[in-house]
């Protein structure tokens, strides 16, 4: 089921993972605990403030393009002809 990956593509993934690791090890990042009135606690600062709209978009583009997923997962399968 899992075929070996081309080296160039593996490099892309590994680069991303290293970037994430670099990010996670950077002690200069962060804001510490924030109160309920902070900017980051606003609904529009959530990573996906409108999940239902995102679900509609995913359905459209899943049906019209050869790519899907990446942002999140879940939802249901469809024939989507």
């Amino acid at each position: 089921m899992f075929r070996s990956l081309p080296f160039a593509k593996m490099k892309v993934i590994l680069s991303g993972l290293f970037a994430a690791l670099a990010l996670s090890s950077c002690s200069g990042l962060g804001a510490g605990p924030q109160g309920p009135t902070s900017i980051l606690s606003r609904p529009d600062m959530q990573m996906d403030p409108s999940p239902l709209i995102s679900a509609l978009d995913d359905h459209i583009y899943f049906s019209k393009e050869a790519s899907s997923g990446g942002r999140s997962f879940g939802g249901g399968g469809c024939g989507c002809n």
Partner: protein
Amino acid sequence: MKNQNIIAALATAAVSALGTGTSEAQLGQADLLGTDFKGSLLFYTEPDRVTAVEAIIEGYYSLSQRDTLGIKLVVDSLTGSSASGAVSSDFDQTFTTPSGNGTYTTRAGETPLDPSFLDTRYSLSPTWTRAWDSNYETVIGANISKEYDYFSVSANALVNYTTDDRNRTYSAGFTIAQDSIDPEGGLPIAFGLIQNQGGIQPRLLGEEDKTTIDLLLGITQVIDEKSLFQFNYSLSSSDGYHTDPYKFLSVIGPGGRPVIEDPGTGLSRVLYENRPDSRLKHSVFAKYKRDFDGNVLDASYRFMFDDWGINSHTLDLKYKIRLNETSYLQPHLRYYMQNEADFYQPFIVAGTEPAAGDTASIASSDYRLGEMSGFTVGLEYGWDNVDRPWSVALEYYLQSLGTVDGQFGELLNQDLSEDVSAIILKFNMDF
């Protein structure tokens, strides 16, 4: 007015139910119980092609400070015409509908579209979100989806771990889905020749299945008091039936014209497509959000590649412009590009056809597997910071298809890369 803590907590639950992507590192746990309902409505129309209407309603109920149950119901309806995979020519062509009981004729110079596209889908998705402590949260979910010829059932699980300083959330998710398809008219035989209406079609009774496993790993990092970054890697592996049972390929004769199978009826010679029986997809997704004094930038990029030879890039930009305390405008731009699948071919040259039932050969002329770029531009207007936030968005979506290799004769006079455009209208509301 609702307590903002409830809204924030429920928003977190809603986001979590769909996957990663929460900045819950900055959110407190729900300290009040409550219910919440959200709804969305979509109108999607391609001139002269497909029209879709989709409604989603979602409800959340907090059982306790730790547990939230969710339920989502989706109903969508599709009607209209869909590209069949055949090519246009300089004469009228007749095709048999998937049921085998009807025909349709495509005029000279027009892209063949199957007008018998009609389906309604119902989907139900329950979720259970539990905050185990201030660090760990889990989301367990399921989905069942049914349409006329398709049935899907899936289960998913997600774990979020938020660090003590609330600056970082690690996410790991898993989904397994089992789909089955029972096509109108039966299962097509690979490269089977479609017969006249009423004839014995190259189809078999029964249904086919597909099993899909998705894995997702993600990190959401608070950068500072105003910005966040997210990185996801996801893997999707599917085994089973991937062929579109309603797509076929034209057989092209000398002179670059489709072969006429039956001069009496004008039936064009077309063969059912056949796709690989597995697919392995990788996606890398990055997103950045930043507040600019009440305005919000939301930028994301996705790179996807798979073992069908498809690479794609998706860039998405939104910028929320606050008009006043309660209303906003949000322009949206999206750009997408993909190259073609290894087995994509827009037609088959006569004399090179695989034999009927040759499942070792793979070929599809579905334009969605060809070279393509997509561009979306839109504008959203909405009210937030009110009891019942709502929004409306109008978008225009244009798909431009790549040039087709190997054209000859009359094919050179035909537009085999016809653009596809769509108007999209979306409503969203918290009840």
